[in-house]
């Protein structure tokens, strides 16, 4: 077992950054420091990914951490989007400061909690212990509660309260699921630390008590599913996205939902092995399909732009859950690809939406007009991002949705028309709204701090590339991960 300094750096950077920014986070240069720490985390994550691609899965530090191609790709994605969001957040938060919506103290809280949030997500991804996974997911909620209520308006405080209570109760279910998992594992692996280690569980999954495991999975799915935003457990999600600062909406949508889904998929692998039925997959397909449909229909009724894209996230998370539920190499491959492209596209959209809302001083879509006129990059960024998220070719979302739909046609034909209908509704709703926001007359002001829009186009360029051409090493990486998940 070689020393794994990369893991130490990946986790240490954001933790250290969170501590440093807890003291310095309100200073003028703090935003740059936030970018710097996120960049270092990303470099460490990339090095870790290179190593895993080269050497295969790694167990490190007394089996506390486990890295395989499934989680290392999410680590790289999380660290990357965290970095670009930090880039975006610098001018965004300076503008908010300029508009008097924030104080230096709030900014300090924001920077420190931002890094801590990244830390908890990376810990959830890297840990081998299903119990620590739970602890990290709960900590991820805790670090973001005060970020959602950062503006201290009644609506944002209410959103944060809802977020805390609903996710707290939800995640309590996941704790019970974890207890049940430990209960089943302890009979096979014996009491003590190793019985919750995923790698050990994976080895003996065939011997675990099926009734207990199926019950455990129901609780784990409901618990982590609350954080994924699966309908009917999604109520916190639109509020938290709409009322919090935009960089927080971007990392919630682009990263936290993915990490929660990761927890569900990890549990599913164990349950599938123990049950040898389609129970877990069917349950996920049901929840996923419901989320796609409800997300699509609700988003067409929204007036607030961030709420609309929050519902779009519910829809897309539902689609991924459906894909992982369906299982098999192609659907899982598509699910992983969709995780990547959704995360990149949705955060890019939130970047543009955030600046658009700052320019017009409102999040109400009927008052945002003519973005392409005053600031073509924001306008076109939003337009291209929306086209990408709606699954227009040649963007990567098209490729993943196409794969999911064609697999569904073959394996679950009954679900295909429902999926197509929901995607159509989402398309009509988002496209017409975005078109009105991008074109037309405008009264928008210039921003005191020029927005950082490079991340938007970098994200969209990657998504475009993934639609046209998936590099062989990346495809191989996804395939490996898909094999692991099964």
């Amino acid at each position: 077992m070689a020393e794994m300094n990369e893991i130490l750096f990946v986790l240490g950077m954001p933790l250290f950054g969170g501590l440093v920014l807890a003291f310095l986070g309100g200073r003028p240069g703090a935003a740059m420091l936030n970018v710097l720490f996120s960049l270092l985390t990303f470099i460490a994550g990339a090095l870790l990914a290179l190593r895993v691609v080269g050497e295969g899965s790694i167990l490190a530090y007394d089996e506390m951490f486990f890295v395989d191609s499934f989680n290392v790709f999410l680590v790289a994605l999380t660290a990357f989007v965290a970095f670009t969001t930090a880039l975006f957040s610098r001018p965004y938060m300076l503008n908010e400061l300029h508009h008097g919506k924030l104080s230096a103290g709030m900014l300090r809280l924001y920077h420190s909690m931002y890094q801590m949030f990244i830390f908890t997500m990376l810990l959830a991804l890297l840990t081998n212990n299903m119990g620590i996974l739970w602890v990290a997911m709960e900590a991820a909620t805790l670090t973001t509660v005060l970020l959602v209520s950062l503006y201290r308006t009644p609506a944002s405080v209410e959103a944060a309260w809802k977020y805390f209570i609903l996710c707290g109760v939800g995640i309590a279910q996941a704790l019970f699921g974890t207890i049940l998992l430990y209960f089943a594992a302890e009979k096979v692996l014996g009491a003590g630390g190793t019985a919750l280690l995923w790698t050990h569980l994976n080895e003996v999954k065939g011997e675990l008590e099926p009734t207990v495991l199926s019950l455990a999975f129901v609780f784990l799915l409901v618990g982590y599913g609350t954080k994924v935003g699966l309908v009917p457990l999604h109520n916190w999600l639109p509020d938290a996205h709409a009322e919090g600062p935009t960089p927080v909406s971007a990392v919630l949508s682009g990263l936290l939902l993915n990490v929660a889904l990761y927890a569900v998929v990890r549990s599913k692998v164990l349950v599938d092995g123990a049950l040898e039925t389609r129970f877990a997959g069917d349950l996920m397909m049901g929840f996923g399909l419901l989320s796609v449909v409800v997300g699509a229909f609700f988003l067409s009724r929204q007036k607030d732009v961030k709420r609309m894209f929050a519902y779009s996230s519910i829809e897309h998370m539902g689609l991924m859950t459906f894909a992982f539920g369906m299982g098999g190499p192609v659907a899982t491959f598509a699910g992983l690809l969709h995780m990547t492209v959704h995360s990149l596209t949705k955060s890019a959209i939130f970047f543009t939406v955030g600046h658009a809302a700052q320019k017009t001083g409102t999040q109400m879509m009927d008052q945002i007009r003519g973005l392409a006129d005053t600031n073509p990059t924001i306008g076109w960024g939003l337009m291209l991002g929306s086209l990408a998220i709606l699954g227009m070719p040649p963007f990567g979302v098209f490729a993943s949705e196409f794969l999911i739909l064609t697999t569904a046609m073959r394996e679950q034909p009954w679900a295909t028309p429902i999926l197509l209908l929901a995607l159509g509704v989402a398309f009509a709703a988002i496209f017409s709204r975005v078109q009105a926001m991008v074109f037309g007359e405008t009264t928008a002001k210039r921003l005191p701090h020029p927005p950082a829009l490079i991340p938007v186009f970098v994200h969209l360029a990657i998504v475009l590339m993934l639609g046209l051409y998936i590099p062989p090493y990346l495809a191989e990486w996804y395939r490996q991960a898909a094999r692991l998940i099964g």
Partner: protein
Amino acid sequence: MPISLQLINLMAALLLLIAFAMLSQRRILSLIYLFAWQGAVLAANSVIVAWSTGQTHLYYSALVTFALKVVVLPWILHRLIIRLNIKWDVETLINIPTTMLAGIALVIISFNLALPISQLAGTITRGTLGIAIAIVLLSFLMMITRRKAVPQVIGFLAMENGLFFAATSTTYGMPMVVELGIALDVLIGMVILGIFFFQVREAFDSLDLKHMEKLREE
């Protein structure tokens, strides 16, 4: 029936009693005392289980439980209600008898739910799993029926107590590292909520959650 088992059953019964008492308690201060008692009984239960089964790690677990749930959390809650000036607040609860009846129904459901699992368990404490699930559900009921922020949070903490009790009765507790992690989460959560209560009061001029109905889907 050995004496340790009788003691464990006694502790479980006490926990259930406390859960019902919390459900009907209207004074915030008394609610905090009840929560501290719940923690104390939990810690005592862990000590008895540790003593009768030789699971030494449960002694540490009991120590952490005692420090966190009997000393630190009640102290933070107590400080909070003094600072927020709601120490003598009395909540008007509608329909205590109905809530109690619903609670009894929940207990019956819990015992049915626990039966298949506890039959598989090899622990001497397996009979108490039903009570553990009942505590979780009763705390949930408490969260639903309360309209004020502090009692809702106490309900949330009581739910965590129920889960902790479930872990002790089915498996003699989770691995130590996980238990410490959970304890850390609970502590951080309490500190964050402490800050958050002031934000709630600042935004709504009260800790009454009935003001929170702005965010609705039309």
